[in-house]
């Protein structure tokens, strides 16, 4: 178990190191003078802001320093939680913008990931080796998993929001409201959350159902399942054992799918103008706000790494074999 976690942590550490390095390197690969082109591309009107930014950039990149010093400095500011100042929302620090957006993104991501995983697995397990269910669940799942997140989101926003007018189609809460801990506001918040959540949930659902169905079929053909049915065990019991075994690869699958799920949430937020990281990234790209973009990138990488680690811990709890170091998930 020590070895297992050691290996995982090494990989995550290296990944984070790579992410920070890429983040540092890519602006320096940009052709031309990055400071000048950033200032030109940033749509900042006030001259004071322009000048402040120029000084700020030159200090921040420290282009007169040797490259290794620039690189070390970027790590230093990272550990101080300093992601720079946003151009788009000048003079708000990027870190503030990001921490304000993250709760909205998490509120979409965590419930949709967990619920789609649980429901999808149940559905897939039910469908396996049952003709009628299989013939309905499987095609629907394939359509769902092939749907681009942004398209289902757009369809739902159009159908439920514009045509039927049941749900709001933009924002995290009504513009007429100020955030407060009142029932009216919470209900409003929930109402705005429901559609983006539902579209994320539905697209993710298909993949889990397909995966679970396939693994369950594999498990039901394994020796222990055959042996149990030869002993006359009820089908229900065999299925329960098969499900418990099939959950393991699905947990690994969850870790592998995290990046895709996060990406789906980002574009879904954009469709609904939901005030999470996705909308921030869109604003950053449209306004050439590279600090904001880089900050968002590091936040996402860090979030995905933390989530990966949590899944590793869960895996160890669920699968006793990893604890005694016999077998288990490949590093």
């Amino acid at each position, binding site marked *: 178990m020590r070895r297992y976690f050691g290996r995982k942590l090494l*990989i*995550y550490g*290296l*990944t984070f190191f*790579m*992410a920070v390095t*890429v*983040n540092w390197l*890519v*602006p320096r*690969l*940009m052709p031309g003078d990055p400071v000048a082109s950033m200032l030109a591309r940033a749509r900042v009107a006030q001259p004071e802001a322009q000048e402040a930014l120029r000084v700020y950039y030159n200090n921040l990149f420290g282009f007169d320093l040797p490259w290794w010093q620039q690189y070390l400095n970027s790590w230093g500011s990272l550990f101080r939680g300093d992601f720079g100042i946003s151009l788009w929302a000048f003079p708000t620090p990027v870190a503030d913008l990001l921490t304000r957006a993250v709760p909205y993104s998490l509120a979409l991501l965590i419930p949709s990931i967990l619920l789609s995983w649980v429901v999808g697995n149940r559905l897939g397990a039910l469908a396996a080796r049952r003709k009628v269910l299989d013939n309905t669940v499987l095609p629907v799942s*394939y*359509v769902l*998993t*092939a*749907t*681009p*997140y*942004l*398209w*289902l989101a*757009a*369809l739902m*926003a*159009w159908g439920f*929001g*514009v*045509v039927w007018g049941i749900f709001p*189609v933009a924002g995290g809460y009504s513009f007429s409201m100020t955030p407060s801990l009142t029932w009216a506001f919470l209900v409003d918040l929930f109402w705005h959350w429901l559609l983006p959540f539902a579209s994320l949930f539905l697209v993710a659902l298909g993949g889990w159902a397909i995966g679970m169905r396939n693994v369950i079929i594999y498990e039901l053909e394994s020796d222990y399942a055959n042996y149990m049915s030869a002993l006359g065990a009820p089908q229900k019991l065999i299925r329960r054992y098969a499900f418990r075994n099939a959950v393991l690869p699905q947990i690994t699958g969850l*870790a*592998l799918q*995290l*990046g*895709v799920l*996060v*990406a*789906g949430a*980002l*574009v879904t937020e*954009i*469709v609904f103008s939901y005030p999470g990281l996705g909308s921030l*990234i*869109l604003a*950053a*790209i*449209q306004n050439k706000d*590279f600090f904001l*973009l*880089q900050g*968002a*990138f590091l936040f*996402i*990488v860090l979030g*995905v*790494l933390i989530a*990966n680690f949590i899944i590793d811990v869960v895996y160890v709890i669920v699968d006793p074999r990893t604890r005694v170091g016999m077998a288990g998930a490949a*590093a």
Partner: protein
Amino acid sequence: MKTEALYFAVRNTKLLVGAGIILVLLGIGVIGPFFIDKPPTEYVGMQMQPPGGEYWLGTNTFGQDLWAQFVHGLRTTFLVGALGGGIAAVIGMVVGFLAGYKGGWIDEILNMLTNIVLVLPTLAVLFILNAYIGVRSAGMQALFIGLTQWPWAARSIRAQTFSLRGRDFVDLARLSGVGSGRIIMREIAPNMSSYLLLTFILLFGGSILIASSLDFIGLGPTDAVSLGLMLQQAHQWSAMHLGLWWWFVPPGAGITLIVGALYVANVGLDEVFNPKLREL
């Protein structure tokens, strides 16, 4: 073996339906643009026309012909999917074969690299790369997608190679002094060719989905029209609120059809190649 696969292929409905849909859409994308004499971004006529006889998919708020955009978009989408999926498949194969066959420290290093790229959230990396380096052609977009998509393919190919490495025929080839490259190409790859094809199909579909997200967020190619770009423009110019459903429904349906058909064809092919899965 070949004829056996063909025998089951023409009897597999999943494969036939999937391949049929893909071929029809591919045909539209390849041949269609030749029948449209105007460039897809030209302002051809009345604005906001619903689908009808003259403009099959209607026009948008600028009076652009959406059918022309759809046809050109299909072409770009297929191109990015095939190229991105192809690049990812090649990298995945090289890394997977090398790591699985060579083993030892080469395996350690490649496996570490694979795992690192695997946990990196792909789309976030692509945001940074595309925004800074300014990817403005479909080919570049495909290249970047290919460069970030390969890890899971490498991992599964490595595992397969690992299991083939110890077989007698590989040992025999090694004893007769054949080089590693030749052994991989002649002995190992042919034994998992069906698996490689399936991997490529999945990467193809995945690349199309990633490209559509990139396009949608404003990092798509500027020299072409793609289905993702159509969705992006529809969203940017509030087609949803104006009720112009014909602007954003067809491109999304196109992507869903292509990717869905690829996945279904993939399952069909799997049944063709894998006797255990065949329904008799």
